[in-house]
């Protein structure tokens, strides 16, 4: 058995887990045990792939060939490895958190919840390891569909409406733009397999390349580029663990990951540079960063503010990738990791506040830090990472993005990064300040509650510690990110 088999194994472990979770329907403890075991097994499986990827090997495997010439195939390369490691590790933490949250809030249909969660993770692995655009597209669509029942989990009219926005936008963009772009690529290049430096043997006309880039960037709705971002705030009606892992890590990262992959492996940095048509993408992404930050400033609902912050942070990755400098691509890759750890901590904290204090608005949070020191401490660390200050990992990714932008002499990108740092500080710092330094106001009421249940606190402490830890020891993500760039021709 070769290493390559671990890739399909990683995709099938969560799917098998989903079946087992469904079978353990009547025994919640067993069911949760299955979830945790599956998550751990998946993480170990992705870890087992790591050494060969660090060695510079890239395991490949062909599974089937649904359309002649376009196989269903997996190919583990550094960027996908990084994404898979993050998602599978955070699934373990989120599972611990979910147990505390779902039981603490007495949510209904918990089995369904865990089943679709596992399917979503399986398709995330598929996105991470996809060897060609068709495989990626298939997993991308399954990810959309499997998260729909999670978004509409509560079944309320509001949830159904949000589900409509969610599915509508994601399906419309993926079928309307992405599928057409994929078929066009297939027609032009005769292949859909990811290849460093691009798939086009002789580059198409600049206008064609520009149109294709447009179709891809807006076809990958999960990257939440404005004006196609509305599904993300809508998805916030889901239970908080879903927002935390899926709508801050798995789903949205699948989006920006796909963007990075398309730019590096389908177009190729050099080819895009020569065509000279990627400027508009930098502007769109930059505008998204700033506009989303301004909208985030005005949100009082904590989860909505976090959601708009995610929209803005995702566009960092898109912008860094479209700046087209190798170092900015490194920054993009690390930002996938940095934002994942920081944002999941913030969502965990939001869920902890809801579970312990039943508060959802920022204006209710005055003085809550005294009752929930662990939670709000983690929240502060997450905020630091979002703003991009040391000693949090967000600083590392911003550093490389800035270096890349300097390399490419892209003044616009530099200005956007600096401006948005200020904006990030403006919408996160007041929350932390209010929580710790304002006295409990009449609106927030005197705290009748303590910390959230133990699994929740444990989970958010782990991710907060890692947010700091990755700043001190960023070797692994850096190694993988540079592995991606080093092999560039």
């Amino acid at each position, binding site marked *: 058995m070769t290493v390559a088999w671990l890739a399909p194994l990683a995709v099938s472990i969560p799917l098998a887990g989903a079946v087992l979770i469904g079978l353990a329907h009547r025994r919640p403890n067993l069911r949760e045990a299955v979830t945790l075991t599956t998550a751990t097994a998946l993480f170990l499986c992705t870890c087992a792939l790591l050494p060969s990827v660090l060695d510079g090997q890239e395991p490949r495997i062909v599974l089937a060939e649904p*359309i002649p010439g376009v196989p269903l195939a997996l190919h583990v390369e550094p960027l996908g490895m990084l994404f898979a490691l993050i998602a599978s590790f955070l699934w373990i933490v989120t599972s611990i958190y979910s147990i505390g949250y779902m039981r603490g809030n007495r949510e209904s249909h918990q089995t369904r919840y865990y089943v679709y969660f596992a399917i979503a993770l399986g398709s995330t692995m598929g996105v991470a390891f996809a060897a060609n655009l068709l495989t990626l597209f298939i997993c991308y669509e399954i990810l959309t569909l499997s998260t729909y029942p999670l978004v509409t989990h509560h079944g309320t009219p509001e949830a159904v409406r949000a589900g409509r926005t969610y599915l509508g936008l994601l399906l419309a963009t993926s079928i309307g733009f992405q599928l057409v772009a994929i078929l066009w690529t297939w027609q032009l290049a005769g292949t859909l397999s990811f290849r460093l430096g691009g798939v086009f043997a002789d580059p198409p006309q600049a206008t064609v390349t520009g149109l294709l880039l447009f179709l891809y960037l807006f076809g990958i709705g999960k990257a939440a580029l404005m004006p196609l971002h509305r599904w993300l705030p809508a998805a916030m009606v889901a239970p908080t663990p879903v927002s935390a892992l899926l709508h801050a890590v798995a789903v949205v990262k699948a989006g920006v990951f796909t963007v990075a992959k398309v730019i590096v492996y389908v177009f190729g940095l050099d080819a895009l540079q020569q065509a000279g048509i990627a400027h508009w993408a930098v502007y769109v992404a930059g505008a998204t960063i700033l506009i989303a930050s301004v909208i985030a400033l005005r949100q009082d609902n904590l989860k909505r503010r976090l959601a708009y912050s995610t929209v803005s942070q995702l566009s960092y990755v898109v912008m860094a990738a479209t700046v087209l400098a190798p170092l900015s691509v490194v920054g993009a890759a690390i930002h996938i990791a940095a934002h994942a750890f920081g944002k999941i901590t913030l969502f965990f904290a939001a869920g902890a506040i809801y579970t312990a204090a039943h508060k959802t608005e920022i204006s209710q949070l005055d003085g809550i830090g005294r009752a929930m020191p662990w939670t709000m401490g983690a929240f502060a660390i997450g905020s630091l990472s979002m703003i991009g200050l040391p000693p949090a990992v967000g600083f590392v990714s911003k550093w490389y993005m800035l270096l890349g932008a300097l390399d490419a002499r892209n003044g616009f990108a530099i200005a956007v990064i600096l401006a948005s740092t200020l904006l990030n500080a403006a919408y996160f710092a007041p929350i932390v300040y209010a929580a710790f330094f304002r006295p409990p106001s009449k609106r927030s009421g005197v705290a009748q509650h303590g910390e959230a249940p133990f699994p929740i606190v444990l989970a958010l402490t782990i991710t907060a510690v890692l947010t700091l830890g990755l700043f001190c020891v960023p070797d692994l993500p850096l190694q993988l990110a540079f592995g991606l760039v080093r092999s560039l021709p």
Partner: protein
Amino acid sequence: MILRHLPALQVVIPLIAAPACVLLRHPALAWGFSLVVSLVTLAVAILLLVRVMTDGVLSYALGSWAAPWGIEYRVDPVNAFVLLIVAGIGALVLLFAKASVEKEIPRERVSLFYSAYLLCLTGSLGIAITGDAFNLFVFLEISSLSSYILISQGRDRRALTAAFQYLTMGTIGATFFVIGVGLLYMMTGTLNMMDLSQRLPEVATTRTVRAAFAFLTVGIGLKLALFPLHLWLPNAYTYAPSVVTAFLAATATKVAVYVLLRFFFTVFGADFIFRTFPLDEFLMVLAFAGILVASTVALFQPNVKRLLAYSSVAQIGYMILGISFVSATGLTGGVVHLFNHAIMKGGLFLALGCIAYRVGSTEITDLEGIGTEMPWTAGAFVVGGLGLIGIPLTAGFISKWYLILAAIEQGYWHAAAVVVIGSLLAALYVWRVVEVMYFRPRPPGRAPVMEAPLSMLLPTWVFMALTLYFGSNTQLTVGVARQAAIFLLRGAS
């Protein structure tokens, strides 16, 4: 020995079985007998496909009268595939039929119902297998007349008017068809299709042949519910018994599309049709209109059966679109969609049959709460619905893939856009039903229901399993469709 007569057996077995079925007065007996017959028919169809794939075109002289004078049965990759679809769906739907028919058809008429069903099957198979234009008309009438009977058996009294409407339109279509065949006979003195294809070029420029072509196109267009000749279809599908709707939706229109392909490409030849007439553009416009208008109308239907019926009109548009590209990829897309849509729509109508069996209605408001009460049925509906949208790993995705690819190949961006918009409209009308099934509680007025019996669920899920299977393994479907496409285009040049 007997294998030599396979082409004849394909039609003769159900044809003889149909009157025999009348003699079996007991419903279960009539059902069992029809099921066995349909399974044997399916076996014959499979054997025929295997033989065609290995040995090439089969020609069979009925009664040993040699070809241009006698009736020739001619099996090539195109119709072998159609035979497989028709026979396969005929058998699967019958497997489902027992409980559903006992509920929807009065006991004393059950055996008559099954004999009409077998006749309808005979007609469809006959249309597909024959190589003789007039013989095709005969089978067309057999299948049409029996389907009028089948439709009129619906419980709703409106089934009678629906059947009558279909009868009127169908008869006009058949008459047009026979006028066209008559004109061709007048000009060439032959009815054999291969013979016709050789003799037609000499007289191709005459007005008579052109008139014949016009009559044939409109006649076939009526049968296949080509937009805007589709008006009979929604009523017929809505008020017919569940089993009949599933069978007709999955076979009747497909066979008509086949006839269109046969006449366009084999008899007249692509040169005549697409160079002499700008028919490809004409068809493409009709296909666009069909896809967009019918999908939009489907959005607003209060009855789910009717919604799916309009969706069928739209899906026929996709097949016609595939044909109108006149390229190998386009035809592959059209033919593959013929197969894929048969499976998906057949399964969807069976799922509705399950709901009609338990709830007694297919009004969308009566589906509230079905998601929790009949989880397997609702699940099947979702899978079929995803297929209609064209989500990857379902058969529908494969069709869309080839159709969009064909559009891009030829630079028809508007066609690619229409396919995409059609998919999104499908997402809207499918999701309307899904939301009602899963997110609305059971209305207080409706008694709680149980999951459908296994005898109905199983065939429904076989269709859904096939939908998923042919979405991930296309060796059979795309393989055969591509061969058929190349065969059709070669026959033309």
